[in-house]
């Protein structure tokens, strides 16, 4: 199965990349867009056979330990719908 991990900068932290993209969007006339923040989308391929609790534990720990940095980022984990390749 596929699991999506979304990692974003904490809301309090300035995202200059998002700001630059927002400025470009404004120049292009997208005036309904009030702000942009850029994060990361990480797709994990997880063994279907794994015990669900163990699978969840590993995904959570992997995200805390390596995929995100708690000093500056927050994350969301979304289990995918059996579209594994």
């Amino acid at each position: 199965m596929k699991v999506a991990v979304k990692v974003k900068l904490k809301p309090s932290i300035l995202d200059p990349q998002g700001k630059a993209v927002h400025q470009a969007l404004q120049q292009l006339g997208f005036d309904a867009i009030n702000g942009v923040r850029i994060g990361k989308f990480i797709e994990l391929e997880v063994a279907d056979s794994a015990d669900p609790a163990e699978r969840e534990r590993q995904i959570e720990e992997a995200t805390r330990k390596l995929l995100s940095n708690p000093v500056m980022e927050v994350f969301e984990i979304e289990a995918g719908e059996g579209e594994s390749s």
Partner: protein
Amino acid sequence: MKSAVIVFPGSNCDHDMFHALQIMGSEVEYVWHKTHDLSGFDLVALPGGFSYGDYLRCGAIARFSPIMQAVTHFAKSGKPVLGVCNGFQILVEAGLLPGALLRNENLRFVCKHVYLKPENRQTRFTRAIPDGQLLRVPIAHGEGRYLVDGDTAARLADNGQIAFRYANADGTGSANPNGSMDDIAGVFNAEGNVLGMMPHPERAVESLLGSEDGRYIFESLLSSN
């Protein structure tokens, strides 16, 4: 005094660091990141560069290289660890220093000489810096915006853990090149034996390089043993 320069895949200031330590009188060896042993060394330097291509976050993958366990032991035993640029990023990712380093506020890769104001000259890294001396050293980074939460920032200042702040040539503020919190360019750990800094003292050790001010840091380190 024997120094280790840790080499990660993507390190590119390892030779500069080796050269600086050598001309300052240290015996130096490169240590590949896949090894586990730092016995016999008195100083560990984590050089600048782009370890693992800066993938995921700067320093995030290098921080789990096998050698980092030995570096953590080395640091916990009180021996000096110096991380410059990517080395600093690796040290914060490893939790050996507080805070995080984010993309420069102006989104530019900034490559120029800056002035640094030493904030604590009582450490093994800074004791040779004369009173009132600013250090003119180069920076070269895209992700050097230092950030900690407000409480930690106050604690760092109270504990003398702020090593350097960016300054103008006359020592005044408003010379911040990357948006770092409180103009911070380098920090110590609480025990004072780990220093991380974005500027490159190893690129300022000979007049040919445009400045010799980086020598003060190596002099401080190499005279303390």
